[in-house]
């Protein structure tokens, strides 16, 4: 299958390993990955901070860039959530009904990585090998905005060598929330504190998730604590292999 990669601005700039792993994984499964040039950012930060007018050109760009592709994947639940639930809404708010219709069309072909693997490609065992003790944090947007459910866990359970440990209060928000972490830094830090405590309680070596943003937040906190628990994107675990 020919799959267009929506890399997301955060993975592109700060966490290219997650995006590279997505490519490696899909190619290993026998698919062709293309990187549509001209893509930048889905505009989620602007929309969620209250700047829908500024987000509009970014939405136009995103829709234009990805319209030619049948299947689009992003290693980010929250960016897929924005594409799926916000693009058409912002376009409608601006009175651009044709953009709204095209945005809905692109949204219908856009998948988060675990959705693509399980629902579209029909695989749960991606042939990965990752001999570590891992805990999974189901990020809020993956869990409640696009509802990936237990797909990431099903994928992780098939990874050879991986010991999956349950995260206490897993469904509680880590406190990132985009600009929430800046605008309400103290509350965000309090939420992060509890999330880190739960991660540490598991005794895991690695905390994984489907969103680079939440991992950046949790990883930044763990690093400040001096903990050696690493945060690793789900794509990197699934792309890891024995050789």
């Amino acid at each position, binding site marked *: 299958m020919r799959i267009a990669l929506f*890399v997301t*601005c955060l*993975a*592109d*700039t*700060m*966490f*290219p*390993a997650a*995006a590279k792993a997505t*490519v490696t994984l899909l190619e290993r499964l026998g698919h062709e990955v293309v*990187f549509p040039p*001209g893509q*930048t*950012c889905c*505009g989620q*930060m602007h*929309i*969620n*901070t*209250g*700047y829908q007018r*500024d*987000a509009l*050109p*970014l939405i136009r*760009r995103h829709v234009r860039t990805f319209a030619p592709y049948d299947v689009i994947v992003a290693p980010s639940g929250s960016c897929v959530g924005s594409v799926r639930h916000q693009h058409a*809404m912002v376009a409608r*708010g601006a009175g651009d009904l044709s953009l709204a219709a095209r945005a809905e069309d692109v949204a219908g072909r856009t998948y988060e990585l675990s959705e693509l693997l399980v629902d579209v490609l029909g695989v749960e065992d991606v042939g990965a090998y990752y001999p570590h003790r891992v805990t999974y944090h189901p990020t*809020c*947007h993956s869990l*409640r*905005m696009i509802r990936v459910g237990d797909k990431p866990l099903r994928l992780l359970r098939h990874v050879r060598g991986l010991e999956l440990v349950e995260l206490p209060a897993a*469904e509680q*928000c880590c*406190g*990132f*929330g*985009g*600009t*929430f*972490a*800046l*605008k*309400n*830094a*103290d*509350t*965000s*830090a*309090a*939420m*992060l504190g509890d999330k880190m405590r739960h991660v540490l309680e598991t005794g895991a070596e690695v905390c994984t998730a489907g969103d680079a943003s939440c991992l*950046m*937040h949790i*990883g*930044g*906190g763990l*690093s*400040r604590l001096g903990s050696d628990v690493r945060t690793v994107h789900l794509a990197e675990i699934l792309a890891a292999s024995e050789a």
Partner: protein
Amino acid sequence: MSTFLGMPATAPRGVGHLRGDESFPEAARKALGNEQLRRNLAHATTTIRGKSGAVVAELPDWQELRSAGSALKAATMARLPELLEQLEANVTAAGGVVHWAADATEANRIVTGLVEATGHRRVIKVKSMATQEIGLNEALEAAGIAPVETDLAELIVQLGHDKPSHILVPAIHRNRTEIRDIFLREMPGVDPALTDDPATLAAAARRYLRETFLSTKVAVSGANFAVAETGTLAVLESEGNGRMCLTLPDTLITVMGIEKVVPTWRDLEVFLQLLPRASTGERMNPYTSMWTGVTPGDGPQEFHLVLLDNGRTAVLADEVGRQALHCIRCSACLNVCPVYERTGGHAYGSVYPGPIGAVLSPQLTGVADNASLPYASSLCGACFDACPVKIDIPSILVHLRNEAPHPRTERIAMAAAAYTMDRPALYARAQHAAKLSRHATRLPPPLNGWTASRDLPQPPPETFRDWWAAR
């Protein structure tokens, strides 16, 4: 009759409790520093969450019930004026008197006037969000009338000269030792040997309230529902204090937000299932009291209904935001909210705390007056899943953020970011510039909030698009 001149009015300033003195982040910072408060809140919300989750799971048709509740509310809002007129006609026909209050000031004037007309100087109150919203107790006190809250938690708050911090459990931020101290200090006729045993505390409150119920002739209540087709009002409560207030006095005055109307008696069936399970985690609430006008020789012989707008028509005029009027004040969204759990209710500056408060208060007052509230959420979406009438709180938050006034520096930064991101060449250059900050582990203000408690990741030597191009 006044002439309608465009946008409907929002709740007035200087009266009632919809606006705080501080922004949410400032107020939250203080609350976060209070360890006892955080422990009390985490304990209480976790307990209610567990209880509610268990009884919700018992109903195989919970999702259908939510959809039914949501649809009933939407249908009601679509013909609100007509239903309110029907309610007025039926309350009047049953011997009640209906008053229309455009805002808090008018509602307070009406109620104060009604109490003064009875010649009594004390009223007993059934816990009511509407009267909290308009600051009725303060208005009554200013007129020399003593309001006595009869809900136990509300009484604790009143005696403690405190403010409620939860819709359902106003004293959620207090533990029993604190409550004992308040009773000892403030409760008339209390036993000085009072302990902090919950049963003993409840007994002390009961003794005090019994005496008050039996000697007070005027009561003020809110309403959970009002049935348009019959003119029936309903109050749901757990302690029985409400029933005492609704039946013992000679005069009953009910203050009700105009969104509380339901078209028919049958509609109650859905809400009477949704509310207690979502709210207190009970299958059915212990006391459901309903009354229709006055009945000669039984119950209050004078009944007044005050229909309160106070910004609600303005909310109704907003296509996205109007869903907030569907709220049945169950407080389920508070109990699952990770922000509320850490900051408590006072940080929201309004009688409506938590996720629903973050969307309702700014709409009632106009967003500019509560501009920090739509940001008092990480948009985690837990509130949406918990809401028994399916209010899409995250979407309303995003909508209100778009209406909120923004700080100038943020406006400039956001516009610049969008400009860059819409130009791939410029964007790639900006990505490379990020590498120059490789050794900056702390950010300058206003971004230092981030690095106060987290380390910044180091930008990688190569962006993904560089890697892809070189491949």
